[in-house]
């Protein structure tokens, strides 16, 4: 591999990783706070992409979609938590089953409303061109994705560390029951956490649509599959874990697929297996088993 090629593939890997971070951050947040492995996360991601598709068709603006789709998903999350998930609090397996059911329903509703054809979304004007970098032209949109992912990580980290809601989240991750005993309304906190997780999935759907496309099946691959891989490798429930996981998996997947194409799919799962063997909590995770 020449230097130019390595440089371009590193950019590909980095932008893929940035997308994975946006995708996985919501799953990680919900798990950390609520102890719920939300297997409907991929379906939320898919729904975000389809909502964006309609918004772009109606308004012609990608930027309106980037606001409206996460908002719509946030509202959906806000409804689902108290109506369905809250009834099963503490019953982990039932919650997981519920989220699987949810994902099946959402995917079928999408099929009914939007059809089952393969669709795609164009990058917005201004970001749809290319710039010349080392080794040739490179799409501006992918550079935007890297910047967006980095900005989101910084914003989330500031919220975590510097704001009241961030303190509540960190306390909730530590011990939600104690937080309730101290007088915090955990019902409200959980509902808004779940809504935020869903909104982040929707945001990922919009940002990823011009790169990954919009089609049946996207809920599992890349949706749920890659977000699970990222949070398992990075560590469940922490922001730094989601960052570390996506920074490792993005480039590893990119280089793995072109260097070892006959075992392309195995590369990232080999990493998952290795991490679980050597550090079962993930690179930066603090999973509490059997609490």
């Amino acid at each position, binding site marked *: 591999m*020449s230097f*130019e*090629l390595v440089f*371009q*593939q590193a950019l*590909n*890997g980095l*932008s*893929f990783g940035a997308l994975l971070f946006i995708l996985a951050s919501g799953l990680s947040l919900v798990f950390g706070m609520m102890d719920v492995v939300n297997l409907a996360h991929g379906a939320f991601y898919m729904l975000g992409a389809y909502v964006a598709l309609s918004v772009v068709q109606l308004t012609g603006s990608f930027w309106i979609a980037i606001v409206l789709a996460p908002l719509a998903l946030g509202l959906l999350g806000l409804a689902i938590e108290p109506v369905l998930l809250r009834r099963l609090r503490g019953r982990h397996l039932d919650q997981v089953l519920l989220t699987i059911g949810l994902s099946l329903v959402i995917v*079928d509703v999408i*099929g009914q409303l939007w*059809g*089952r*054809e*393969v*669709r*795609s979304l164009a*990058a917005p004007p201004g970001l749809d061109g*290319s710039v010349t970098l080392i*080794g*040739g*032209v*490179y*799409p501006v*949109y*992918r550079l935007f994705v890297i910047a967006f992912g980095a900005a989101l990580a910084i914003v989330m980290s500031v919220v975590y560390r510097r704001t009241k809601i961030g303190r509540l989240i960190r306390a909730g991750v530590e011990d939600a029951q104690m937080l309730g005993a101290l007088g915090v309304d955990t019902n409200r906190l959980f509902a808004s956490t779940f809504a935020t997780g869903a909104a982040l999935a929707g945001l990922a759907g919009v940002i990823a649509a011009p*790169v*990954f*496309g919009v*089609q*049946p*099946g*996207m809920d599992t*691959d*890349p949706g749920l599959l*890659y977000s699970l891989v990222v949070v398992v490798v990075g560590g469940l429930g922490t922001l730094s874990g989601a960052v570390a996981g996506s920074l490792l998996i993005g480039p590893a*997947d*990119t*280089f793995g*697929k*072109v260097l070892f*194409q*006959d075992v*392309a*799919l195995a590369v990232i799962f080999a990493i998952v297996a290795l991490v679980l063997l050597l550090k079962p909590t993930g690179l930066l995770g603090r999973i509490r088993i059997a609490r």
Partner: protein
Amino acid sequence: MGGFAKNELAAKRGYTYRLTRRQLLVASSAAALAACAPAAVTPGASPSASPGKAFKLGQLLPFTGVYAELGNSMRRATELYLNQHDRKLANRPVTLVYADDANVTATGVQATQKFIDQDQVDVMMGVVPTPLAYGIRNAVHAAKLIFIDTNAGGNALTRDTTNCTPSCKSPYIFRASFSSYQISYPIGDYLSAKGTKEFFLAYANYGFGTESAADFTTGLKKNGGSTTGNVAPPLGNPDFAPFVTQIKNQPTKNVYSFFSGADAIGFIKSWNSLGLPAAGYKMYGAGFLTEQDVLKEVKELANGAITSLFWAVELDNPENKKFVADFQKQYPLLPDVFTVQLEGEVAALDEALKTLGGDTSDKDRFVKALEDVSFKSPRGDFTFDKATHNPIQDIYIREVKTQNGQTVNTISDKIAKVTDPGK
């Protein structure tokens, strides 16, 4: 038997089985319909033909999962054909039984068994993915059920193979679509004969993709052509930039690819955003790379791509013009290649039933009648190869162009009567 078990179960659970008002309604209206049905059919049936006993046609298609839209396309074609023919094939009124394989091989195998045992269909059609076609091969062969493959293009389904691995031809299996050889070998042969001899390969890394790449390479080599390397993303790969980056960093400018659906869209979009057209790279491929489902999303980004297939919307023959017009009258969209595959299949069955006078009691005569069908279809002259039951068909070389704001496959050349080698 089923009803008895249900009653028993109900009794065990402590409640009695009663006829509800809704069940009564359903039952009585069904009886009323049954009473009406013969009266409705009789005037249409010609006195000379054998009585119009219902012809049961089973179709195994994906209506959910990633290939759902293919299933929908095929259903549209079936319904269109039957509506145009008074819901009859020859003199037999058709009862359709649809089953959904959801792109899961196990589900499809089960549904096939149901067609055989429970529904006892007269003919089975359908099957999109090749692994499913291979998976049901032995079951339909053993049951002597006539199965006409709608899409699955794996070469082995209509060939002689060692130990029938992974599959092999059967007297009861016909294919109305194509073999991967037919959409890959001729274009390799054609391009190398015209003097374009060096190609880099890019194909989805699964059975059909590797088969297509191999057949294309064989075609190239016939005229001294060769391949210089390959990239092979997994099927359904989300991000194509890494693979297109690899293509851009190697010197062979002509790239033959096998992708379809979402993969094709991802490939073509990455191809453009990474600047390959400006760098002098040229896209070639098996026809699915630039079919309607892909073109309507990528539009002029696919311009200049050269592909081969047995059909195109723009194909200029009276049957195709009528087919495209009729289809658009019933549905608000253009027909795609999958509707053409299904149309050919139902039409072939219709022809065979006509020669039999609707009498399907002798299985060998039925097979013989299918082998002998010959008619003009939207794709051109349609016949089955008697040796393999694969269609003998013209393959068109097509180039993507944007004309009057519409991006279409224009026909640039034709390779007549391509036959699968069968071995």
